[in-house]
């Protein structure tokens, strides 16, 4: 008898959408999107954002495809993913980022690499991406505010990028920073948080195969409001860990400060793993509202990525290290 051990994220035969259906859906979406852009651009020629939808070429399919997710996790539509954002650098309302990020300039862009690594320095966005093959990763995305989406990201595994800088044995943590530029990021004119936005991961979390640097969405260049030109995606953690518009990566031995932890340590821990058993002072995390649905669904441990990441936290009290 054949005994197969199945991971939660593995594909069941019953879950596979026939390729023709999938391709058709893609083709339809693309046509619909292009038609939408055409119409909107025709009607409102002054909106530069609508012209900015640039397709990315050579994107590799991975085992983290839309088909790998259960049937009740359909991919959210482009409008929702790009029109409903928390990106306080562009305002605290959900629609502010789309409205206020259109003049943001994601190029030219460079990232400062610092700290405990053999190859520190400044690296341009192009040089950061060039040696890698772009991949599509369809991940569940869970916001600490108890809503969630399914997002088809395009990008590169974080581990592959970090290894290029040859972190030393002192590199126990990786620290990230968002651009600080109130001229381009009007939300930074208000002291909602201490700018620039700061985030961090433990090095083994950063090296986990799920950790991802995203540069695109739906096979296209990442829109400004979603964190262009490059953002982090850590799907088993609450969304605010996924820092956007990264300008600095620093390897260090000490646990780095993070913006939300600085603002309210009781509410936002360093780890911020999705955990339905640990109630947040603001929102019960037991359930969530999937965007596009009215009623809530149960939240999964580590956002459904338990088998891939639970090993990172054995022997840790996840209540204390929330």
């Amino acid at each position, binding site marked *: 008898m054949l005994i197969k051990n199945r991971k939660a994220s593995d594909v069941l035969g019953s879950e596979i959408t026939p390729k023709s259906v999938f391709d058709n859906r893609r083709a339809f979406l693309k046509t619909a999107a292009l038609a939408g852009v055409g119409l909107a651009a025709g009607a409102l020629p002054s909106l530069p954002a609508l012209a900015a939808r640039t397709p990315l070429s050579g994107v590799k399919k991975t085992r983290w495809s839309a088909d790998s997710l259960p049937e009740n996790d359909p991919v959210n539509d482009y*409008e929702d993913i790009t*029109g409903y954002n928390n990106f306080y650098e562009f305002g605290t309302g959900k629609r502010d980022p789309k409205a206020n990020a259109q003049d943001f300039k994601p190029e030219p862009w460079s990232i400062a690499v610092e700290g405990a690594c053999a190859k520190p320095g400044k690296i341009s966005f192009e040089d950061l991406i060039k040696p890698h093959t772009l991949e599509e990763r369809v991940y569940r995305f869970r916001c600490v505010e108890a809503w969630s989406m399914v997002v088809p990201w395009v990008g590169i595994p974080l581990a592959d990028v970090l290894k290029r800088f040859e972190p030393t044995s002192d590199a126990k943590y990786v620290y990230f920073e968002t651009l600080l530029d109130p001229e381009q990021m009007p939300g930074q004119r208000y002291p909602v*948080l201490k700018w620039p936005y700061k985030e961090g991961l433990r090095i083994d979390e950063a090296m986990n195969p799920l950790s991802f640097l995203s540069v695109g969405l739906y096979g296209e260049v990442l829109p400004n409001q979603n964190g262009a030109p490059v953002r982090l995606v850590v799907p088993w953690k609450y969304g605010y860990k996924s820092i956007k518009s990264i300008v600095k990566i620093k390897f260090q031995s000490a646990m780095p400060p993070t913006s939300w932890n600085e603002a309210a340590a009781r509410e936002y821990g360093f780890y911020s793993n999705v955990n339905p058993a640990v109630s947040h002072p603001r929102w019960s995390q037991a359930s969530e509202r999937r965007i596009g649905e009215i009623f809530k669904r149960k939240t999964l441990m580590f956002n459904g990525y338990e088998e891939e990441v639970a090993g990172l936290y054995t022997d840790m009290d996840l209540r204390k290290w929330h």
Partner: protein
Amino acid sequence: MVWVIKPAVWVLCLAPLAWLGWLVADAVLLGGRGLTANPVEFINRYLGDWALRFLLIGLAVTPLRILSGWKQVVRLRRLLGLFAFFYVVLHVSNYVVLDQFFNWTAIWEDIVKRWYITVGMLALVCLIPLAVTSTKGWIKRIGGRNWNKLHKAVYVAGAAACLHFFMMRKGLQYEPLVYGAIFASLMMMRAVEPLKRKLRAA
């Protein structure tokens, strides 16, 4: 004069609800996106915003009378107060029905665990007896003086509502501070007037 103004106030007070109704109809029938990708959250905040605004508008009647000397304006106070309560009830109903879907365990947990919800519920509890006793019959039954005393609870509700808004926002956001400042100045004007009168008498 007031008989002309009252219908106008009715229309203005119902306008935000009508606009919400339009957004819902547009979303359902035409696939409009005015309710954002998360309609439940949008409706909650929209109704909460208007509940707080009407509460402050109701609290502005007395200062307006003091500043303008227009005594008749007081006759609009009960109507405005009831509209504030109306939006509070819609706001809470949306939370109970669409947000939590009658999950009373989750709601109770919210009330005891999450301070901003505790404070919000305090505002609601303060307003219920005021809405109940808003009729002429109730004023007679408990007497004008007691009725006036009881209706001072609106100050607690106003403070709690402002605090609820402030606590609910993440980080340091200026919008709740603006509402808080408006509430504080409305309260201050009430305190200053009797003081002036005393000075004049002395």
